[in-house]
């Protein structure tokens, strides 16, 4: 899983610096000397940061054929699970399905901010509401859950599907949820009550 670079103002200080920290986050956290001994050496040769500091902290090791510019990927976050099923992204918040839990990451730093637990089988699909306050999830436990993103609590659990839920989404107005399931039914429900359409 990777968090894509957010390109804001063409400002060499902050964009270079953020790349520098995020790409080397785990290495630096484990051992601060890595700032000078690896992170700096691995900076793209044309970056402002490399130009500014490489001569001040000379190293025996040199990158001969490396990228000249920063790439799109800024931080790689390793997950314990074998695979990451689905992602949802809203305003600097990323929700991922990792087994029975939904894990929320801060997209700016890549740090884990919360774990939403409640489903009793693997979660397959997640989606944010348009304002980012609610999250809907569909799971192998045949339920759909609606979460309050801030507090991490379950607002409501929807029952009705008889098979694993494969996909969920929430309407722009925060009033309707649609879901698709292996039970070959497509369900569209208001947040008050669920009703099968077809």
């Amino acid at each position, binding site marked *: 899983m990777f968090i894509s670079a957010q390109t*804001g*103002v063409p*400002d060499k*200080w*902050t*964009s270079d*610096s*953020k790349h*520098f*920290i*995020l790409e080397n*986050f785990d290495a*630096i*956290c*484990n*051992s*601060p*000397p*890595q*700032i*000078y*001994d690896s992170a*700096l050496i691995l900076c793209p040769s044309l970056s402002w*940061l490399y130009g*500014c*500091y490489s001569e001040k*902290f000379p190293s025996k090791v040199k990158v001969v054929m490396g990228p000249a510019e920063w790439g799109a990927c800024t931080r790689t976050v390793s997950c314990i699970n074998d695979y990451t099923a689905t992602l949802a992204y809203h305003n600097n918040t990323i929700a991922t399905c990792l087994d029975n839990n939904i894990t929320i990451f*801060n997209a*700016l*730093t890549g*740090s*884990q*901010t*919360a*774990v*939403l*637990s409640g489903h009793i089988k693997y979660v397959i699909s997640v989606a944010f509401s348009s304002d980012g306050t609610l999250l809907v999830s569909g799971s192998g436990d045949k339920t759909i859950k609606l979460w*309050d993103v*801030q*507090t*991490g*609590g*379950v607002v409501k659990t929807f029952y009705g599907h008889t098979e694993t839920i494969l996909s969920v989404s929430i309407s722009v107005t925060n009033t309707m949820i649609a879901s698709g399931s292996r039970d070959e039914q497509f369900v569209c429900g208001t947040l008050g009550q669920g009703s099968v359409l077809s």
Partner: protein
Amino acid sequence: MKGTRRDVLFQLEQWLKDKEDKRVFWLNGLAGTGKSTIAQTFAEMCFADGKLGASFFCSRDFEERSNLRSIFPTLAFQLAHRYPRFRQELLPVLAKNPDIGKESLCSQMEKLIVDPFQAMQALTIVVIDALDECRDEEPASALLSVLSRYMDDIPLVKFFITGRPEPRIHSGFRLASLHPHTDILRLHEVEPTLVDNDIKLYLKTRFTEITMNRHDCGLGEDWPGPHNVDILCKKAAGFFIYASTVVKFVASRHYPPDERLAFIISLSQDTTHEGKSGVDLLYTRVLEEAFHDADSYNHELYSRFKSVVGAVILIFHPLSIRALSDLLRDCGTPSRISSALCTLHSLLLIPDSAEDPVRIFHKSFPDFLTDPERCTDTQFFIDPSTHHNEILLSCLNVMKERLKRNICNLDGQVDLNKVKDLPTQRATYIGDSLGYVCCFWTKHLEKVSSDSDGMEEVYKAINKFFETGFLFWVEVLTLMGKLDDAVYALNDIQRWHMLVSHTF
């Protein structure tokens, strides 16, 4: 203090006995009406009766006491201490969820509070003071929304909460599932004569203490007399903070108490201070008194006052006098800083040791000083933007001078998790002032208004920082375990740059 706020405490006792469904009590009061004192007394009362389960006193002055996510773990810890049955339930939860401190408020509430309580079934009171001092970005208090969701699962627990009537807290208590269960007492609407009697009792008791402690001053037994107490009470106009500030002012070790009191009493509502509330007038006069022997043309004295007090009230984390003197290089040694502050001991908590943090007694003081409508004397008024600018430049200067490679003298390719005495190393080589500066300099940058005159100087200093100090700064934040903050700080700078980029 014993004997005061009887009416309020009586109402609280009624609420405790009440079998009805009001399980939450909101003590709603404006700044300076005595919320925290009541909360403390009430907590002590409940503790004496064996009913207190746990308490949490929020305070913006302490990182761990202004963090929403420390509330439930703290309460759970105290509850486990108090009830063996609770502890029995809690221990396996902690073993299973070692990172519970980082989890969402809901799961904290559920795992740390609700589940153990459900197994325990005992009547308990939980006190949470000054909810408005917790950092919270939600439109409706996050703590209250969690509470509203789980309250029905723990029907035997009663919550006593105090807080200013801020929009976030108002809307929290208005939540549909919380509202019907909440009793509200508006402290600023309590019958004025009751409050006045309490303030008089408070003043009398404190003045008697002063009389006894300062028997050398020849104060009469009934000093200062009921007439003077009445005058003070009228001036206080219901605000306890007024009375307690007066007492601190009068009790100063360096002056005869009767002279100090006469000074306060003589303050009439004269025309220059027309329209000011009692507290504002008092603050103004205490400041004037602090400078009464200063030549009003002594700009250096006033500007030092502004720099020092400006820093004390604007920094984002309290600092000691020594750290302040590291930060405010132009204001001189710790003893100079001490002397700039010492006349303000009725407004600021100034510790004897230069290593302990200087704190503000009451939030209403910085509110007053930074509001040009309230603090009309320009010699005292502290313009936040100007002073944030000043602090910011000091921060950049401190970093320029002190940041270096391998600041903690760690050996070679060290694994940070294996350094045994990291906190000691941090305290020795980084210390409070550099640590503060590295964590908070961009917060000051954010508060500098983008059209201020010193912008070019700031820009140059930041440029210098990025060209020479950036890597060292990353190193310090890593050593402090706050590399995340570096990313936020860079975002702050990016936002600032967007705001000011048109100027360059």
